[in-house]
């Protein structure tokens, strides 16, 4: 309300006491109270949304970090695993995981008999169904690496399958098991007895962080290993690629470039690039880096190049802002004592602007960390089981996935156990983001200078 519209009779009269609020005063106070209430309401709504989101994610996902595990001695039956008995590796590779599954099944049943756990009508096949599909493969790898294990009895731990695991996490109940074609209530009762006998227990699942992805038939062994490596590779490459480029471009534009139409055009374009939807960069990446440049699909290199394109404008803008925040007196002082322009920038301005540049870089990294769209287009939403090799051995050129696309892939799987895994992956992603933001805050707090 402008002053012109105020009715003169509303204004406080001299005769009135200052302690008794006039009409105008009351109106202004009411407006203030209202404004405060709107502000509080806005904060409450956004906090509530955040809270609901976090509660759903954590209640769905926290169980992904624990896992029902079977522990039992396995007798390596030589007749099954090495039929010819000559311990020849070439011969032994002919025994597939099917053979190893039988060995595990037999050992588990023997253990049940030994511990006098009554199986009450659960068939041998259904007992075998307790053991995760990845266990035979692990056992096979162990035996092929060390053939002397054959004939021995070793202590082995195997994941229980997704449905059994879900029972201990409350996802599967006796009621749902009645309807479920993949599990029976009898199997769940047996699981309870196995827990009492100490064969089965639920414990923290470190494999969730290290295992690669697994197929739809074995959600219990699916992990984030490849996705975490892929994400780390990409983030490292993005820093290596975008920080020098972005900082160099920003320094040039801010300190050296002449002020003309051409540099104006560049500036406008940089601001526009920062607002381009990320999926566009994915299409660009597919066309340029894969189809034209011949870089391998699904590799963290291509992912990093695409994310670099996305992060560059943000880094340039942040760097320019922090360069501009360095007071001109520093520059004139440096030039005044005879420093060249390059010396002025690199000896004085850049070090002072560094905390701001790093903060901006970390924040733009954090936003590219959660980026999914462009990665879907360049084939990073793939089923990748082999870990990429080390960064110096060309690992960045090998197929990998990333955390956000892993979430996307798991959320679309048909087994409900993958929903839990997807939420668990979100928690890991959030932890990454939190760490990066905390680092950015610390950098700002410790090194930022006010002039």
């Amino acid at each position, binding site marked *: 309300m402008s002053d012109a519209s105020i009715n003169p009779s509303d204004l406080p009269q001299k005769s009135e006491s200052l302690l008794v609020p006039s009409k105008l005063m009351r109106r202004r106070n009411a407006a203030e109270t209202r404004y405060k209430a709107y502000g509080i309401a806005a904060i409450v709504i956004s906090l509530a949304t955040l809270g609901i989101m976090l509660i759903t994610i954590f209640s769905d996902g926290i169980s992904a970090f624990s896992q029902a595990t079977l522990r039992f001695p396995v007798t390596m039956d030589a007749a099954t695993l090495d039929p010819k008995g000559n311990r020849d590796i070439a011969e032994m*590779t002919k025994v597939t995981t099917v053979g190893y599954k039988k060995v595990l099944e037999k050992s588990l049943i023997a253990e049940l008999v030994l511990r006098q756990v009554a199986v009450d009508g659960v068939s041998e096949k259904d007992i075998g169904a307790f053991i995760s599909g990845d266990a035979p493969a692990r056992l*096979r790898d162990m035996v092929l690496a060390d053939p002397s294990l054959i004939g021995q009895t070793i202590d082995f731990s195997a994941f229980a399958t997704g449905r059994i695991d879900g029972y201990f996490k409350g996802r599967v109940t006796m009621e749902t098991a009645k309807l479920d074609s993949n599990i029976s209530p009898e199997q769940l009762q047996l699981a309870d007895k196995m827990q009492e006998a100490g064969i089965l227990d639920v414990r923290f699942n470190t494999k969730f962080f290290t295992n690669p992805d697994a197929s739809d038939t074995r959600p219990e062994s699916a992990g984030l290993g490849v996705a975490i490596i892929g994400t780390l590779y990409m983030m490292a490459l993005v820093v*290596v690629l975008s920080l020098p480029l972005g900082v160099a471009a920003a320094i040039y534009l801010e300190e050296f470039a002449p002020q003309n139409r051409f540099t104006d055009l560049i500036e406008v374009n940089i601001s526009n690039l920062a607002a381009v939807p990320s999926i566009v960069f994915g299409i660009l990446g597919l066309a340029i880096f894969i189809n034209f440049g*011949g870089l391998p699909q699904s590799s963290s290199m291509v992912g990093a190049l695409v994310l670099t394109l996305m992060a560059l404008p943000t880094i340039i803008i942040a760097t320019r802002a922090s360069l501009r925040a360095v007071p001109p007196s520093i520059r004139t002082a440096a030039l005044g004592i005879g420093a060249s322009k390059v010396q002025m920038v690199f000896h004085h301005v850049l070090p002072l602007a560094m905390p701001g540049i790093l903060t901006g870089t970390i924040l733009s990294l954090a936003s590219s960390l959660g980026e999914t769209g462009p990665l879907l287009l360049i084939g990073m939403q793939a*089923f990748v089981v082999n870990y990429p090799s080390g960064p110096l051995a060309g690992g960045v*050129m090998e197929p990998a996935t990333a955390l956000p696309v892993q979430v996307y892939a798991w959320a679309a799987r*048909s087994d409900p156990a993958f929903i839990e895994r997807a939420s668990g992956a979100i928690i890991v992603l959030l932890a990454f983001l939190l760490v990066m933001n905390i680092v950015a805050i610390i950098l700002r707090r410790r090194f930022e200078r006010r002039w």
Partner: protein
Amino acid sequence: MKLTKITVSTLAILAASATVSMARDNVQVAGSSTVLPYATIVAEAFGENFSQFPTPVVEGGGSGAGRAKMCEGVGENTIDIANSSSRISQKDIDTCAANGVAEIMEVRFGYDGIVFASDVAGADFALTPSDVYLALAAKVAKDGALVDNAAAQWAEVNAALPAQDILALVPGTKHGTREVFDTKVVVAGCKETGAHDLFLATAEGKDDKEKAGNADKACMELRTDGRAVDIDGDYTETLARLDADKNAVGVFGLSFYQNNTDKLKVATMSGIVPSTESISTGEYPVSRPLYFYVKKAHIGVIPGLQEYIDFFVSDDMAGPDGPLAAYGLVSDPELAATQAMVAAGTPMGPLE
């Protein structure tokens, strides 16, 4: 000058590493999201049992996208295999040929059943194609004329069905599943109810074939008043929508249903309960073949490609007792012929 040095050396390292490891040693697969779970199961088992080869990398993305990617050309930066839940089209074959992909192997490894399912606590549904048509089509035949579909409850369509509001969650038009739903259920129902004849009478076209095609298309028009809802996402989205509205009936793949029998109740179609058995005998009508297409020029170049496809169609994997069948694949009765074809590396002939 430290910064410049770092920049230069970084670029040098990148250039070096880019040239070092260009040769691809893993099989690269992309395509249908329906085939994706089967392909990952095979890829995983392949990686475990053939330790001399890396595990194939399998991408989703849709049948059409996968075939398009395969047809981009020959070379290590193109994919080797396209998974597809529908048959390759002449257009794709032409694109392939134009880009130098001359020989393609077509491998049909099994069938996928498509089922109607409702909430597990809800009423039983015994559907027929004509029930589905009468409930979901835009126009239905009434007293020898085509009228707008006004049915609000399943019981109005067929007195044997529950008195429950009609709400069907059907796959969106970009899904391969939709095509099967359209041809095997909707058009079949259209013909049974006589609406097809009425459409045919007014259909435009040069000859009978084109007229019939247009009549089929008219049959496939679903009602737009919100009772038939297109789901463009995955089956998980259909399931979430069904959870939110217990009255809904959703269209799912058989394998998805088998993994969620605690939440879903399957509907019979013309009295037949869908199962891998009833689909393989052909009793249950709503099914479709699943394929993968192999770029022949890559066999012998990409290590493990021939071994992977042999392994995929082997009885241990795609056979009736294999893990794919356990997950919901309907095994192909002619698998032996496919195995021989794959072993001999016979490329596909022209489409008939």
